[in-house]
Structure formats: structure tokens, C-alpha cells
């Protein structure tokens, strides 16, 4: 027992190793590329899987550590100074609290299964080892992001996940569409990251330069925290608010929110996410559904004290989240590409999470992040299994009736669909309804929009299910059988997808730890009035009914019987249909904007650069050159002239010397 406790303690103390394992795996795979040993493809897979597995063990012990502490988890924070310049002392470290433990568990668990699945999916791809190197690189960045102690460190890892995402979206870079999608994702994220960086710098400005160095006193009182520490934000936010007033403060909060806006695909920086589906499907599952896109929500959670301080920023966050949920759901309704439909569904669910953060339902938002990671990863993996079986066909119109050929995939997809629709006490039910309860307390409009979105969610998800798995097969490709390497992770993921919500809800199993107990935002000094979530009250009932309406609508329109012809609605609601099929014209507006404004200004600045800036540079060079050729005339090469000049100048200098020393 003591041995056990000792080793558990060791694993907790060395939690920083969790991101280091995948980093080692990446380096080994990349450096060992030329070795003969690596002709065995599985070696890179084993290295990556092993690194993630070690991380998972750490995460499990961290969970045990957290549950062992009861409701008030005392966070472990360790910082190491990286570089310091005056008042600004940047540090790296690790922060272990309930939020990071939860994310550690999700990331390691989901990526472990996805890495195993990848073996089946990418077996015949030429870039097998490279893919695993990138996967491990992503894991390193994501786990580093999760364990970050301060805003600066999270920004570093934030960019690193962006790079990994870029590399993986453009993995099949010989396809022009994939290369374009990768660049688009990168650019869109740059826009958000820029805002994020400016937000951080604003915060630094108001705490360091403007009105005395606030950190000095704070860090003296809290030696375990570092400059820009998340745990210090609770004290920093009121201080800044007091100094700068609500307007500037709200702007600062929204600048920080621009990071999540791009990374979590919120309006209006969302257009990269559907395009990112050009990457291999395991990537869509891991990065663009379960983990990286959720990092935005995680960051909002980490910087929550800032948002709590400014109610106007919270309103904007809530409204943006809700709008994203609705817009994405309406687009998903008309998608025929199975991955695109799932991508818009992800965007919509992220909208839910952000809206939850905005309305103050902190733990509900993170709970939805938690449950969503499982079922959305599983849904994407199912779609990958389908695409793989149908010889790279992604169009749902050319699928149908796949239930017989792909039974495990079909059943797990159904489980995921039920979970995301929030039916029958599955995971999605608990988390989504908690968000709805929070929204109901905050604003009726947001509540009704989210409720409507829940209905749409159920409709489009069951639509994809019916189109893909039921009815008659409509494609030409020969359908292969399922690969056991690919369906085993699906079956494993189905369990948390269905049950983890109920397990951690705190209602079904009263003795079991509840998610909202551990992950909640406590306002210091104020007794936390928890949302009393009653599973049998009006709101969950309403949302279930709405979800059932969506299910039946999908069944009648796309089910095996086809009672209602979808074309009728298409004609009837032509304007809405056009809006949806054209993705609310976001891409067209952006293209137009780039074409008409960005390109013009780019051309002007290019001209300015080539004529004015280059002119200045070349002018300087020309001046030096002409000066040099002028001076060259003095260099006659005759020794006696030099000597004469030497003695003449010595003579003059000594005269001057004598004159001054006289």
C-alpha cells in the first residue's frame, strides 16, 4: 500500500513528464527516420502509443489524487523562470487542479484510442511514420497547453497546437484542397491569436506599467504563483477593473476571447473548421472535434475571473456562442458530406460550450466539453470507418444500408447520435441540459435559441445516421468489412459516450463524485449558489421532447420509409435552404473582402515596399558606394605619399597638442 502511495506521489510530482513523453516520441521518430529499424512501420506507432499510455497512467493517478482530496482540491503549481526582463518575468511550469486533471484524462484517453485506430486507418499510407510523429507532436502541445500555469505559457502551446493542426490538416498536401485548407486554418487562427496576444499584452500593461507593478506585491504574498498565473487572475481582474474602467476592461476581455474565437471556431472566425476536414479522419476526430477546438473553451475557463468581472464581455461571449450554435446547426442540416456535417455539428456544440461560459454556467460548459470529447471523437471515428469501408466516399447520398456490413460502426454511431442529441439519459443529456438550465436563468432568448438548436442537432444527426446506415445502399463502391483495429476503439469510446454523463452528474449515483462539485467557479468570499439541476424538471423534459421531434422529423424525411419528401421542404423554404447550403455566405463575404480590399491594400503596400522602402535601402547602399569611390582617390598606392601624409598629420597634431597643453 505504501509502495502504491509512493509511486502515485511520484507520478503526481512528475506530472510535467506527461507532455514530455510524446515530445520524446516525436524526436525519436523524426531523428530515427533513416535507420533501418524504422523500416518496421509499427515502431513509430508503438512509440507514440506508449508515450500516450504513460501519460494516461499519470492522468489516472492524478484523478485518484483529485478525488482523494474531497471537494476543495488544493492545486499544485510549480513554476520555473524562463527569462526575466525587469518587471516581466516569464516562466514555464505545471498547474495541477481539477480542470487540468479532467483535461489530461480526456486528452490522453481519447488520443490513445485514436492513435490505435489510426493504425488501421493509415496502414497503407506512405506517410505512416510521419503521421505518428505529427500526432505525438500534437499531443505534446495539447498536454503542455493543459498543464500551463500562466497566460504566456498557454500562448506558447496555443501556437504549437496551431502548428500541429496546420501540419495535420495539410497532411495530404499534394491535394490542392488540403493545402488550401491548412493555410486557411492557419490564417484564421493567426487572426484570433493576434487578438489574444494583444489581450495578454494589454493585461501586462495594466498590471505592470500603468500604475505600479501589481505583480510584485502579489507574488510576494503568493510565492507559488508566477507572473501572469491563472490563479492570480482572480485578484488581478478587480484591480485592473478599478484602474481602467469597464469599457477598456471589456475590450481587453474580448481581445483575450479572440483566441478561443478562432480556435474553437466561433462566429465570425469559424470558416476554417469545416475546411479542416480535408485532413485524415483520425485528425478530425482528435484535433478538430475532441481536444484542440475545445482548448478555446478551456482557455475561457482558465481566464474566467476576467470574464466574470465584466458583464458586458460575458453578454458578447454568450451571444456569440449561441449564434454559433444556431448558425452551425442550420448549415449542418443541408450538408451531404458526412464529415462536413459532423464538423458543423462540432462547431454547434462548441457554440453551446461558449454560450454556457457566457451565461455563467461554468461547470456545465466544461462538463459538455468533457462529454462531447468522447461522443464526437467516436462519431468522427465512425465516419472514418465508413469512409474507409466505402473506398474514400464521403457523400452520404452514395451510402445507405451500411448497418448490415458495418454493424459495430453502425451501433456505435447510433450511440453517439443519441448521446449528442441528448436523449435517454445519455452523456449529452446531462451536460446539454445543464447548459440549458444555466441559459434559462440568464436569458430567455438564449434559452429558446439553444433549445431550438438542440432540436436541429437531433434532426441533422439522425439524418446522417439514417442516410448512412439505413435504407438501401446507393453507392457503386464495393463495401469492405470492418477492420477490428478500427472498431475496437469505437466500442471502447461508446461506453463513456453513453454513461459518463450519468456517472458524473451527481444525481444518478448520489455517492459518486459529481463533476460540478469539482469543477466550479467559486467567487472568493461569496457562497456559491449551485444550480440545482433536477433531471426531472421542466427544462430537461422540454429539451427531450424537442430532441424527439427532431428525431421523428429526420425519421420521416430520411428514414427507410420516406414518408415526407425532403425536396418539398427544399422548395417550400427556398430562401432558408439557400442560406444554409451557402453556409450563410460567410466564405463568399470573406473571399469578396479579400479580393476587393485585402488584395488592393496588399498591392499598395507591395508597391510602397518595392519603391520607397527598397529605395531607401538601395539609396543608402548607393551613398556608401559613391563615398567609397570618392575616398579611393586618396589611396594612390605610393608609399611616400602615405608617409608624407603621416608626418604631416603628426606635425599638425603635435602643434595642436602643444597649443592645448601650453
Amino acid at each position: 500500500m505504501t509502495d502504491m502511495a509512493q509511486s502515485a506521489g511520484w507520478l503526481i510530482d512528475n506530472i510535467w513528464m506527461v507532455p514530455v513523453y510524446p515530445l520524446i516520441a516525436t524526436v525519436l521518430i523524426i531523428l530515427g527516420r533513416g535507420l533501418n529499424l524504422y523500416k518496421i512501420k509499427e515502431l513509430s506507432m508503438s512509440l507514440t502509443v506508449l508515450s500516450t499510455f504513460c501519460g494516461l497512467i499519470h492522468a489516472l493517478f492524478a484523478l485518484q489524487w483529485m478525488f482523494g482530496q474531497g471537494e476543495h482540491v488544493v492545486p499544485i503549481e510549480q513554476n520555473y523562470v524562463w527569462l526575466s526582463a525587469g518587471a516581466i518575468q516569464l516562466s514555464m511550469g505545471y498547474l495541477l487542479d481539477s480542470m487540468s486533471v479532467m483535461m489530461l484524462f480526456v486528452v490522453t484517453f481519447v488520443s490513445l484510442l485514436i492513435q490505435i485506430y489510426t493504425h488501421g486507418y493509415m496502414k497503407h499510407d506512405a506517410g505512416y511514420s510521419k503521421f505518428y510523429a505529427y500526432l505525438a507532436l500534437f499531443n505534446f502541445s495539447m498536454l503542455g497547453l493543459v498543464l500551463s500555469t500562466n497566460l504566456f505559457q498557454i500562448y506558447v502551446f496555443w501556437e504549437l497546437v496551431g502548428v500541429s493542426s496546420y501540419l495535420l490538416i495539410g497532411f495530404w498536401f499534394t491535394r490542392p484542397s488540403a493545402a488550401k485548407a491548412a493555410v486557411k486554418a492557419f490564417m484564421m487562427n493567426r487572426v484570433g491569436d493576434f487578438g489574444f496576444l494583444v489581450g495578454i499584452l494589454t493585461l501586462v500593461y495594466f498590471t505592470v506599467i500603468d500604475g505600479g507593478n501589481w505583480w510584485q506585491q502579489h507574488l510576494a504574498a503568493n510565492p507559488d504563483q508566477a507572473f501572469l498565473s491563472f490563479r492570480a487572475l482572480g485578484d488581478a481582474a478587480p484591480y485592473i477593473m478599478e484602474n481602467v474602467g469597464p469599457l477598456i476592461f471589456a475590450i481587453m476581455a474580448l481581445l483575450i476571447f479572440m483566441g478561443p474565437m478562432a480556435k474553437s471556431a466561433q462566429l465570425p472566425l469559424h470558416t476554417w473548421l469545416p475546411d479542416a476536414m480535408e485532413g485524415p479522419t483520425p485528425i478530425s476526430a482528435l484535433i478538430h472535434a475532441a481536444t484542440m477546438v475545445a482548448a478555446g473553451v478551456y482557455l475561457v475557463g482558465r481566464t474566467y475571473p476576467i470574464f466574470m468581472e465584466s458583464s458586458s464581455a460575458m453578454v458578447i461571449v454568450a451571444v456569440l456562442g449561441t449564434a454559433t450554435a444556431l448558425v452551425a446547426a442550420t448549415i449542418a442540416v443541408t450538408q451531404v458530406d458526412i464529415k462536413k456535417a459532423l464538423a458543423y455539428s462540432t462547431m454547434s456544440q462548441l457554440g453551446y460550450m461558449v454560450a454556457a461560459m457566457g451565461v455563467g454556467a461554468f461547470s456545465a460548459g466544461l462538463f459538455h466539453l468533457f462529454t462531447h470529447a468522447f461522443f464526437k471523437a467516436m462519431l468522427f471515428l465512425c465516419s472514418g470507418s465508413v469512409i474507409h469501408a466505402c473506398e474514400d466516399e464521403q457523400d452520404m447520398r452514395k451510402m445507405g444500408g451500411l448497418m448490415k456490413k458495418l454493424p459495430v460502426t453502425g451501433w456505435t454511431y447510433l450511440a453517439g447520435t443519441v448521446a449528442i442529441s441528448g436523449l435517454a439519459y445519455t452523456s449529452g443529456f446531462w451536460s446539454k441540459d445543464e447548459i440549458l438550465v444555466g441559459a434559462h436563468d440568464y436569458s430567455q432568448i438564449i434559452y429558446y435559441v439553444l433549445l431550438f438548436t438542440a432540436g436541429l442537432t437531433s434532426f441533422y444527426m439522425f439524418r446522417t445516421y439514417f442516410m448512412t446506415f439505413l435504407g438501401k445502399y446507393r453507392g457503386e463502391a464495393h463495401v469492405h468489412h470492418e477492420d477490428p483495429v478500427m472498431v475496437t476503439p469505437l466500442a471502447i469510446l461508446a461506453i463513456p459516450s453513453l454513461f459518463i454523463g450519468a456517472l458524473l452528474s451527481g444525481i444518478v449515483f448520489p455517492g459518486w463524485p459529481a463533476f460540478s462539485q469539482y469543477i466550479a467557479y467559486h467567487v472568493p468570499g461569496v457562497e456559491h449558489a449551485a444550480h440545482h439541476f433536477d433531471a426531472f424538471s421542466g427544462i430537461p423534459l422540454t429539451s427531450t421532447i424537442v430532441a424527439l421531434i427532431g428525431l421523428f422529423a429526420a425519421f420521416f424525411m430520411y428514414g427507410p420509409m420516406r414518408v415526407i419528401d425532403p425536396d418539398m421542404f427544399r422548395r417550400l423554404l427556398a430562401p432558408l435552404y439557400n442560406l444554409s447550403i451557402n453556409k450563410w455566405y460567410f466564405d463568399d463575404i470573406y473571399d469578396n473582402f479579400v479580393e476587393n480590399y485585402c488584395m488592393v491594400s496588399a498591392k499598395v503596400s507591395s508597391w510602397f515596399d518595392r519603391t520607397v522602402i527598397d529605395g531607401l535601402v538601395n539609396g543608402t547602399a548607393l551613398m556608401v558606394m559613391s563615398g567609397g569611390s570618392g575616398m579611393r582617390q586618396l589611396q594612390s598606392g605610393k608609399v611616400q605619399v602615405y608617409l608624407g601624409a603621416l608626418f604631416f598629420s603628426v606635425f599638425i597634431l603635435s602643434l595642436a597638442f602643444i597649443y592645448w597643453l601650453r
Partner: protein
Amino acid sequence: MDLSIFNIGLTHFIVLATILFSIGLLGIMTSRNVIRVLMCLELMMNAVNINFVAFNNYLNPEILSGHVFAIFILTVSAAEAAVGLAIIIALYRQKRTVDVDEFNLLKL
């Protein structure tokens, strides 16, 4: 040796050194032959030597540092003359002349 009966002081030595130095300088500036340039250089060096010895006697005659310096300079200038002559011979083999104005390799 007592030179006081001739009433020769520091000034005389300095004047002598200056004359020697100026002759050397003029020689260097005007001659075209490298050998002569080298000889004039030696002349200037000896002017310096005279200065050293004279000032040593004038300032603190007990210590012979100026004399030692003069001897060092003589030695070094002997070595230097050897090297200089060797260079001149090498140059002569290249250019078939000892005219200073022809040695303008430093000029581009």
C-alpha cells in the same frame, strides 16, 4: 667623460637628433631607390637613439634604461635591416627594379 667644459647641454643633443631625423625624413620622402629609403630609415632610427641616451643622462643618469633601449633598438634595427633587404631582393626578383613608385601592389 666630462663635457661641461664644452658647455654642451641637452639642447645640443636634441638639435642634433632633430637634424638627423629631418635628413632621414627628407631622404625617405624624396629618394626613389629603395636602398636609399632603407638607409634613411636607419638614420631616423639613430636620431631616436640619440634622444634616448641624451634624455637618460639628463633626467636620471644613475639608471641606464635609455642606454639599454638604444642598444635594443640597434639590435632590432639590424635584424630589421636584414629582413628589409631580403624583402627588397624578393621584390627586385619580381619587378626587376628597386624604384619605390613601382611597388604599388596595395593599390587596387
